[in-house]
């Protein structure tokens, strides 16, 4: 049996920590496509991801988990579609210090709507300690409005355990959906 490959997407606004999250769990030095950020009025970061970040985790038996980080800004949304194609799940990171984090989340949920509706999305809210508003309730209200019941967690993706927590909850959500919706289904075709 040839090794299988699975793809996880880290999406979210610029500066939300996608690159950091991938670096926290990738076993290879992440491939980056950073370029100079000329848009300092909207974000202070010196560089920004122009195409994608990429990391890998080798699974027992030689299978691979491929980790893709998307560029944050909406002008790169074509990359979201390209990278999201065939993804196992998506981790959406929101930076609560940005001007309109709810609008940010709405955009990513629209882009990854199919995945999110299939219970394969988890949402991590960062910088909530220093920026408590909007509250988690507001984010939940937004997901409800869109018709999604995704887990939403306060996280700091600089901590590896928080990244693992996001993955663990994503997988448990998928397992729960599997238990309820597809009892008796066969093995996942790959």
């Amino acid at each position, binding site marked *: 049996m040839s090794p299988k490959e*699975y793809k996880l997407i880290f999406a979210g606004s610029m500066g939300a920590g996608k690159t950091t999250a991938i670096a926290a769990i990738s076993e290879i030095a992440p491939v980056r496509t950073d370029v100079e950020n000329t848009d300092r009025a909207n974000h202070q970061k010196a560089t920004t991801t122009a195409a994608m970040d990429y990391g890998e985790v080798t699974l*027992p038996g030689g299978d691979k988990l491929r980790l893709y980080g998307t560029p944050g800004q909406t002008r790169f949304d074509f990359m979201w579609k390209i990278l999201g194609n065939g993804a196992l799940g998506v981790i959406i990171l929101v930076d609560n210090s940005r001007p309109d984090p709810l609008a940010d989340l709405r955009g990513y949920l629209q882009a990854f709507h199919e995945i999110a509706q299939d219970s394969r999305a988890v949402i991590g*809210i960062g910088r909530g300690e220093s920026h408590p508003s909007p509250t*988690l309730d507001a984010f939940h209200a937004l997901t409800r409005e869109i018709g999604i*019941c995704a*887990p939403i967690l*306060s996280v700091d993706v600089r901590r590896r*355990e928080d990244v693992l927590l996001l993955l663990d909850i994503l997988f448990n959500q998928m397992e729960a959906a599997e238990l309820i919706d597809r009892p008796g*289904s066969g093995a996942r075709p790959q």
Partner: protein
Amino acid sequence: MNAVAAKHALGITTVGLDLRDELLITSLLRVIGDGTRDRWEYRDDLQADVALCTAQTASALALRKPDERSRTPRCIPVLREDEQQPAGTPALRAPFRAMELRKLLDEVSSLLMTRRSLAVATTNAPGEASAVNSLQPFKPFRFGLALSKLIERASRDLHRVEVGSVILHVIPAARALLLTEPLDDESLAIALGPRTDVRIRQMDDSETQRLIASGAKPQTIDWLLWRAGLDGPTDQLLPGLPDHGEFALRRWPDFGRLKHKQSHFLMAGLLTRMAHSVDALALASSQPVADVYAFINACALCDLIEVRQEEKSALRDTTSGQNTSHTPRYGGLFQSIRSALRFGRS
């Protein structure tokens, strides 16, 4: 984390019940075994603390003048389908089930404890005071329930919550806790103890100013409510939750901030998708019932639980036995990712 009380034996007897019911009660007592708060022994005489009687016998005994004996069994009526429960007394309804009997016995334990208690000091502070439990009978989830009731009132005023020697400040409308220093485990254990006195008092604005000046920072109170549920008794649901109800989650708990076990994630995933009874959730998640109780209680105190009366049993059949009967879509994928990244279930 609950204060562990040394169990003392209480006596129970039956008066006027037919032999079949009497035998059923004695066998249920054996089934319950050590599962009650106090130890219960069946007695053949009226030296017992409690007598299960027919409704008629109960009324007759209630009319009797107190006799010279120091102990008169407290009568608990046993009710048939159409009989109404008399006000102010617990009752046991037929057909008898172990869970109901166990709950009844614990309730009676509390009543007897109350009767034995001497000091009744309801020392409300001037101004406003509420939810004061000055007695200290065993009352599971005492602190959590008092706190969630306070939050429910959504007052914008600062409230001082005194639980044993621990003092907390709460702004209910903001679901905020003001702490000058983090609660240590010892304080938490005191606060969550089922016998710890809880006093709640409304404070004026100057107190809020004083607290903020002394460095208190508001934080969400959910973690504390969560702990009050999680670390409470694990053999029962929170008072108010129906034993035979089905429970669904309104939304996912914020596991980024709440103390959690890995098993909570699957339970949350199941409950956000479909209502489950306690047993069905235990089965579907392969977790002990005690963990299911703890999880549902924690979610309920954080106001995340929706109760649905029993849904169609067909739904329950869908969940039951799943773990053994199907090959999952994702195969062992998650297990191998967890093992590669070394987290979660081993």
